[in-house]
């Protein structure tokens, strides 16, 4: 998790150099909500270690589907917040040229892969790997396509849409943190 957090911070720094002041602040807020959402996802299993998270999900199932109900709802809220923030973060670039799509693709992969690993993915060495892998690939593809699509869409949308998404994400994360959430 800490390695992924570092990756997001590095990518955020690189992106920030291309943004004007308003988009830079928006991107920073999105980044903080994204990392906070991922932290909640890790707290669901009580470990910041991706191996432990994946191991727990391989045995018990994806964090989003494992009860008690209140915990599953809290985890789903965190996942939704992280997804919204990820979309805003990915879509904060004002324009992408031909070579920029390579970096954008890597960032989409990073966001999609991280969300998948924290909230869904089972461990590779488990018995459920065969079915889990198929489901994971499907979900990863869908998530990636969604993020790319919504990210591009978001670039052409209003500032209002970004702000609403971030406020919703922040409220979800704050709600989970202060009500106890999955911890």
């Amino acid at each position: 998790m800490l390695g992924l957090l570092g990756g997001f911070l590095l990518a955020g720094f690189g992106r920030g150099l291309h943004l004007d002041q308003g988009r830079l602040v928006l991107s920073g807020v999105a980044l903080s909500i994204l990392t906070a959402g991922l932290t909640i996802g890790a707290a669901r299993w009580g470990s910041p270690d991706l191996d432990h998270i994946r191991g727990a999900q391989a045995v018990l199932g994806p964090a989003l589907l494992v009860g008690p109900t209140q915990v599953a709802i809290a985890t789903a809220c965190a996942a939704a917040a992280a997804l919204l923030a990820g979309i805003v973060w990915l879509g904060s670039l004002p324009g992408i040229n031909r070579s920029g799509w390579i970096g954008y693709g890597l960032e989409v992969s990073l966001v999609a892969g991280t969300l998948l690993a924290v909230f869904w993915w089972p461990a590779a060495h488990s018995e459920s790997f065969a079915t889990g892998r198929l489901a994971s690939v499907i979900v990863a593809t869908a998530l990636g396509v969604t993020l790319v699509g919504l990210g591009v869409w978001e670039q052409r949308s209003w500032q209002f849409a970004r702000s609403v998404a971030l406020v919703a994400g922040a409220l979800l994360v704050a709600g989970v943190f202060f009500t106890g959430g999955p911890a």
Partner: protein
Amino acid sequence: MIEFVSAAGLVAGLFSMNYPPVWRALDGDVSRWHLVGPAVAAAWAMVVAVDRGAGNWQTGALVGVAATGMAFFAATGWLVPALIFWGCSSLALGALIHREASSVGRLLGLLAAADVAFIAGVLAQHAEEPGWMLGSVGHELPAGLWFAALVLRGLLAAALIHAPGDGRALPGVPLALGGGLLLLGRIEDPFSQGVVLLMLIVAAVVGVGAVISPDRPPVVGMWVITVSVSLALAVPQQSNRAAVAAILGAAAIGLWGLAEGRGHFARAFLIGLTPLGAGYGALALAHAELFSTAGGGRMDRAALALVSVVAALGVIVSVRVARAARSESWQPLAWLATLLFAGLSVWLGLPMSMLGAAALPLGVPAVVAAVSAIALIAGLAAFALGYRGLAASLWPIPDEPPLQPAIANSTVIPTAVIVPALLVWVAGFAAIVWTTIAGLRVGFL
């Protein structure tokens, strides 16, 4: 002469991190020396940078006494020698401020208040546990007083960055801060989550101030200090990385006025919390510690949530500072010192897991050599692309001023300096790439 003395001091500071002196009054505690070494090295690098060939030996002499006193204070476990060493260091620091700074009343007041808090803490600790040893403090009153001394020393460092004058008191920045941070490492019991949360809130507020005013060095310096101290408070026993981040970041901001036209990215790296610097190491340690206690209550979870906010703020502040072009003038030695600080931050900030990974058998030597060569060639190619301006055409920056202003003054760096510096940079880049690959291969991520 001052250049040679400073170079010797710099090398001694770096060398002593792993080989501290041991004699009757010094216990040779390497853990505290990991903090002292960077502070001493940074102070000597700043002596050369601010001297600018004037040959002001008095500055070097005072820095020498202050640095030696601080280093010996770090290594002694005895009460009387500790007070003597602290006193010598503080007196030399005061003389440096009195001699070289233009506005001394406030600065000396802060220094004196910090010393009073330190001595009061020593007396309080002595009252709790009478004896001649001065190890770690575990009681609330002495710990609180030493924390107050740290806060006052931090304010002194920020004020020194802002102090008017020709900048010859700037070497006092890492020494003042280093002395205060040494006290934090001697506090046994971790602070309550309320204190950690409060410091994180203060860091966030100062960070917002730095986002609004990225061209004001004292505010940016205060951001580095507050965020590092707040992260160190979460894990006081392993506060070295946070202390190194604070010292090197504050030192780089201190030299900002002398290297405004260059070193944008090195400064941004030092004040942000991005990998692979010491700041990120501190962030990772604090995150792991707060994560382990997050089930305790709302205050614990709020502190954990604030770490995410502070990390994102670090990105925004560092980007804003990288683009804050106040002037195009720069002094070569100040620029090189800033690069040195960035290199030190990487060296001392690499997570131990990655260092451990690099020490593992990594496969066939030929493959290792080939990957290293590829990394080196990639680094050289990247430099060539950047040098020819092709990078700008590949990754254009829309509607923004240029990130690297042209050199405006007539100062020219000698080839004998620039070539080794570039080689060191390329080698460092290759090492980072290789370490990352090695870390990925053994499952670091």
